[in-house]
């Protein structure tokens, strides 16, 4: 048995934030959130961080290999790849975060509705969710973009909707679980209105799975958004966006490796950050949840 367990339980220093302390001790969660924070800060400070304009073309600097003037090289239009990667974070991270917000909010609301009111409302919501689940997430997003036309806004909605079913299912299950407890019955017997019961008793009980799902879902949203942008169904040129930047990389794969490489590294780092943070949140908040 390790020595530390033999010592009398040391009284932890009185802390106002025990959750924060647990979070800070989880290596994965800390690494993940630092990664994401760094990327977001870079994206936010893009105008003052980048020496080059991300959109203006400079034919004399076309297709330069990485070097002192352009650390990550330039693309066919002579645009600095480092600058475009940093600016691209604005679009890519924004799309990812907003898509999670769209999917998480609507999914949670629908799940609450289905779980709390059951009956035909619940059946309707759950059957519609089954429809969404009939296509794999990325294909559902692709279909929605196919119908609505390629743009970043449509991409956000499409990725959001494709991530919705997971929230509906998990929240619905959690609500069903909570509402059968006696304290809800007691609350209802003492005359509490539905909204009050949902706000006071149901919401706190579904918060943990929703937080876990949305952090884990961020990585997936970033991947789907980048993929559809790569296919030309998201950001339109000349907007710098990581996925869209890579489609130029394919054209110039022979001889110009840097174009196809660095935007992908940015996506990889962001998704690793989201996955580490998400898994950390799962360990800390809801270890039983498997998504």
């Amino acid at each position, binding site marked *: 048995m390790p020595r530390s367990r033999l010592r009398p339980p040391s009284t932890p220093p009185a802390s106002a934030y025990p959750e924060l302390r647990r979070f800070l001790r989880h290596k994965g969660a800390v690494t993940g959130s630092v990664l994401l924070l760094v990327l977001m800060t870079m994206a936010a400070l893009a105008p003052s961080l980048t020496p080059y304009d991300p959109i203006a073309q400079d034919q004399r600097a076309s297709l330069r290999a990485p070097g002192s003037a352009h650390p990550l090289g330039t693309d066919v239009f002579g645009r600095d790849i480092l600058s475009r990667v940093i600016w691209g974070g604005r679009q890519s991270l924004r799309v990812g975060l907003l898509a999670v917000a769209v999917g998480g909010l609507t999914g949670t609301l629908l799940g609450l509705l289905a779980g709390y009111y059951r009956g035909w409302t619940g059946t309707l919501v759950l*059957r*519609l969710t*089954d*429809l969404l689940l*009939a*296509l*794999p*997430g*990325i*294909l559902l997003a*692709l*279909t*929605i*973009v*196919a*119908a*609505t*036309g390629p743009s970043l806004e449509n991409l956000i909605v499409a990725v959001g909707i494709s991530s919705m079913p997971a929230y509906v299912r998990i929240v619905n299950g959690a609500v069903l679980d909570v509402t059968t407890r006696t304290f809800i019955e007691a609350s209802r017997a003492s005359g509490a209105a539905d909204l009050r019961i949902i706000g006071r008793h149901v919401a706190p009980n579904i918060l943990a799975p929703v937080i876990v799902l949305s952090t884990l879902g961020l*990585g997936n949203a970033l*991947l789907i958004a*980048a*993929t559809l942008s*790569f*296919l*030309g*169904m998201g950001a339109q040129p000349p907007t710098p966006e990581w*996925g869209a930047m*890579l489609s130029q*990389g*394919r054209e110039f*794969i*022979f*001889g110009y*490796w840097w174009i*196809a*490489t660095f935007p*992908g590294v940015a*996506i*990889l780092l962001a*998704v*690793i950050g989201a*996955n*580490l943070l998400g898994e950390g949140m799962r360990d800390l908040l809801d270890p039983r949840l498997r998504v």
Partner: protein
Amino acid sequence: MARFLAWRLAATLFVLLGVAAAVFTLMNTLPGDPATMLVSHFGASAKDIEILREQLGLNDPFAVRFARFLGGALQGDLGKSFQQNRPVARILIENTWPTVQLALVSVGLATVIGVFAGVAAAVRRGSWADFLTMLISLLGISMPGFWLGLMLMLVFAVELRWLPALGGQGWSGMALPALTLALPAAATVARLTRSSMLEVLGEDYLRSARAKGLPERAVIYRHALRNALISVITFVGLQFGLLLGGSVVVESLFSRQGLGQLVVAAVFARDIPIVQGWCLLIAATYSLVNLLVDLSYALVNPRIRYDAP
């Protein structure tokens, strides 16, 4: 069992009907006129476009068009492609085999690589080999598939020149697309195999198996892995759906014939019948694979029996 199967098949049919309705509504109520898109390059006049709309049946009321689509779909007729002017069903069939081939090879690769890596990591829990496997698989699940494809292209086609970058035929053309799809899936399978192996490894029956003198390999692969496999099977099944999704980008990336490349082209051309037919085909395949996954549980674990709800 038979009742369960019948019930699930009926439920699947209803879901497919719903998908048909949803996709048709989505595709036909949104702005953007396919007739205009089709001939806009040729400088067609408004009158030409009107004639084309009439020919494509786009002028009929929504309900009529939907009834026609659904009636046809039930008889296996998915309409005609706007662009190719051939039956959608035939075009889909022509493109199905290359995609299925790619998906099967990838699922096979992913399962073999993933299960072995997962078992190896679980058996050596806490060692550097375990750590390395898990690190690589974290990279694997966090990587955009198409970027992995680009990197494989850079290494094996551009630098080493072992394999063709685009449009290769036969096995050498299959290698890079299949690896691109298989590696991220293998990463998930490896993580899953590891965690379910770890749960099983502490069980008493493994101690018994060792006590009766079985070689370690038999203990691991015959007794432990078999019980750990059930959650892995679910995932391999779900991966099949993800691979169908991944095929969209991989086929476009490697210029490989298949359903994915077909639908991407159709999306840009607003060839609505192709997109609709493709959606139904994917939804049907995905639902059936999920059903097969559920049924396969009973094969791996005979204690699981299915009854109709």
